[in-house]
């Protein structure tokens, strides 16, 4: 599928991976905020939390649509069988995202005595969406059986210990992204509570990451092989060292009451986890058996969409950055936007 020596499938693989990583980090802190909502009872503090992401959450969620659409355009077979296989978890993700998304608006429009309903919808929606995203990732890592270009597994394959553990792992990841995001955007009591939560969350997340890695290597000999065979163990070791470094850095930045560094450290840790996932399945796009090239759409499809992507994604990054810049700084209790 190469045109003049350029492998379009690899480029698209990287673009989709980039889009989904943007999603995980950016909607990760939105969803994490929803998870942490459960721990904050003061309604003014809840207002502040929501307001830190109100102008940007919609753009953050758009990266998920990009991930889906790009997969659809560049690797239709992967889009078809992965989504078919993950049907029930994905429906629950979407259901969660519906409640989370509308809560942003409905919360302020409900009568005072009904507001708690939308607070609960925000918390519940965030938790359900996050947990089942994790379940979906876990099911994906475990492998999707495909026969004759069709999903050949069962409707409840995702209901297994490993995917469920991945769901817990993602809850911790997003909660930590959310708590460290609030270190950047808030002050006073709320900020110190988030600092207080971030430390144990980091350790718990590190523990779950170790568990997930060990479990993966234990049940998937082929993935363990990828990690350890030949000189690969050096790459794996480097990732592990960097991950430990990230955890140390997060804890140190938290101790020193740094505002931005903890979030950057968590984002780095997420990136490393992401890299580890990529190494584990490369060059498959539907593990264990379908490669990027087997799932690819015809080169003319990939090229057509790529022309747009290469021009437009940098522009998107510029105005996304601009929007964050416009709304920079701490959000205070009682702040009004107009």
């Amino acid at each position, binding site marked *: 599928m190469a045109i003049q020596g350029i492998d379009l499938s690899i480029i698209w693989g990287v673009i989709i991976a980039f889009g989904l990583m943007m999603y995980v980090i950016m909607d990760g802190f939105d969803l994490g905020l929803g998870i942490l909502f459960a721990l904050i009872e003061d309604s003014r503090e809840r207002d502040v939390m929501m307001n830190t992401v109100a102008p940007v959450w919609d753009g953050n969620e758009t990266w*998920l649509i990009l991930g889906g659409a790009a997969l659809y355009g560049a690797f239709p077979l992967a889009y078809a069988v992965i989504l078919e296989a993950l049907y029930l978890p994905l429906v629950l993700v979407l259901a969660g995202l*519906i409640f989370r998304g509308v809560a942003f608006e409905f919360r302020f429009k409900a009568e005072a005595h009904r507001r708690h309903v939308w607070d609960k919808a925000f918390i519940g929606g965030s938790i359900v969406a996050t947990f089942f995203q994790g379940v979906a990732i876990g099911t994906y890592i475990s492998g999707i059986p495909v026969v004759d270009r069709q999903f050949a597994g069962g409707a409840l394959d995702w209901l297994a210990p490993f995917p469920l553990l991945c769901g817990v792992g993602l809850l911790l990841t997003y909660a930590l992204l959310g708590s460290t995001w609030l270190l950047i955007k808030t002050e006073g009591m709320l900020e110190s509570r988030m600092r207080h939560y971030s430390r144990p969350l980091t350790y718990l997340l590190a523990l779950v990451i170790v568990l997930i890695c060990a479990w993966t290597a234990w049940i998937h000999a082929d993935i363990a092989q990828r990690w350890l065979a030949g000189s690969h163990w050096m790459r794996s070791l480097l990732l592990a060292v960097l991950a430990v470094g990230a955890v140390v850095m997060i804890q140190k930045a938290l101790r020193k009451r740094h505002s931005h560094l903890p979030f950057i450290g968590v984002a780095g840790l997420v990136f490393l986890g992401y890299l580890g996932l990529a190494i584990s399945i490369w060059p498959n796009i539907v593990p264990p058996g379908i490669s990027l090239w087997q799932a690819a759409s015809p080169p003319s499809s990939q090229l057509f969409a790529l022309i747009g992507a290469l021009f437009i994604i940098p522009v998107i990054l510029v105005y996304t950055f601009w929007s964050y810049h416009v709304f920079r700084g701490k959000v205070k209790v009682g702040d009004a*936007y107009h």
Partner: protein
Amino acid sequence: MFNLDALDLARIQFAFTVSFHIIFPAITIGLASFLAVLEGCWLKTHNQVYKDLYHFWSKLFAVNFGMGVVSGLVMAYEFGTNWARFSDFAGSITGPLLTYEVLTAFFLEAGFLGVMLFGWDRVGRRLHFFATIMVAIGTLISMFWILSSNSWMQTPQGIEIVDGRVAPVDWFKIVFNPSFPYRLMHMALAAFLSTAFFVGASAAWHLLRGNDTPQIRKMLSMAMWMILVATPVQIAVGDAHGLNTLEHQPAKIAAIEGHWDNKPGEPSPLVLFGLPDMQAETTRYSLEVPYLGSLILTHSLDKQIPALKSFAKEDRPNSTIIFWSFRVMAGLGMLMLLCALAALVLRRNGALYRNKAFLWLALLMGPSGLIALLAGWFTTEIGRQPWVVYGLLRTTQAASNHGALQMSVTLALFVVIYFSVFTVGIGYMMRLVRKGPNAADARHTDDATARRPLSAAD
């Protein structure tokens, strides 16, 4: 219970989620352009009425937009979860088109929406106006791509079939396929009309309650101008769209007309009303006007229009439904024209704002744009059956391999969620309408409450 199989359930699920979804983007498209016009007028004239209206309608826009986003996300994934065989077959076309929609439209809307809704104090007036325009353009670009994709499924071209799957050959032909320009224009005007009738009905409601302010009058006036300009154009575009369908999807036209047989050498009548029966292959209780079918569809008195019996039974769309959905759409179009002309006549001496009968008509016509839009989509989508990609892939071959139980559970889940969430949201929108632009703006100016996520509404 109704003895539905997994395919029926998948189709019902798609019809349900997409019908609910399309209401929100239609209003988003219309309101975004309306807001851009309001802000432009305000910047030019410094008339406070425009700014008040901008703030009022931006609150409704925010609620509506949010519901469009979350219901649209479902659609982006439903192609794969429920229609995996279709995605595998045609993803090389519809996938890149959807990718372009996300890249050129969704990010544009999302990126500037925050500034548009919350950025009044953070950016200058010109930059804010720019943000509003970007959001409006984003909604139009979005419509461009998704309608190109849908139209390609109706009138596919520019492709070849390789290994049993679609491979693109000429992207220009794919994007600008034969039915696309008509469908795009028809949908754009439908979105503007739906919004104009919604705005007009909101104003009429206030005027009927004696809440006669310059803001309310301006709303009604702008809505009625829009309706006056857009309705005749829409009728002409609809006619051209019909002729285009006649050329590319004659079976759909035959089903819309409930027309079963052509007698040799005789012009085709138009069935005004009747009840098409797919089993008996006839339209019962039909009220026919001779020659009119030929006249409308061939613009002649002797040529015949396609008849359903000339298509194999398994290739016929369901006439019982689309015969009526088409008539609902066309009938509402005529009522819209009546409303537009009545407004024009009453405008001359200002009776537009006082005439009770007209205000009642405007109020009752509030949902007419959306109802006509849905009826039109039902007509064109059900009329495409039994194909999902016309002439290339049958709907029966397009679905994922889910069991009926799984599909029933998810359908029930979607129905419960959509009704509980979106009816509440629409209820909040109606409450905002009831408060009206004056009260809402008074609140706005001394607004010292918390930042209002994705809305300033309360």
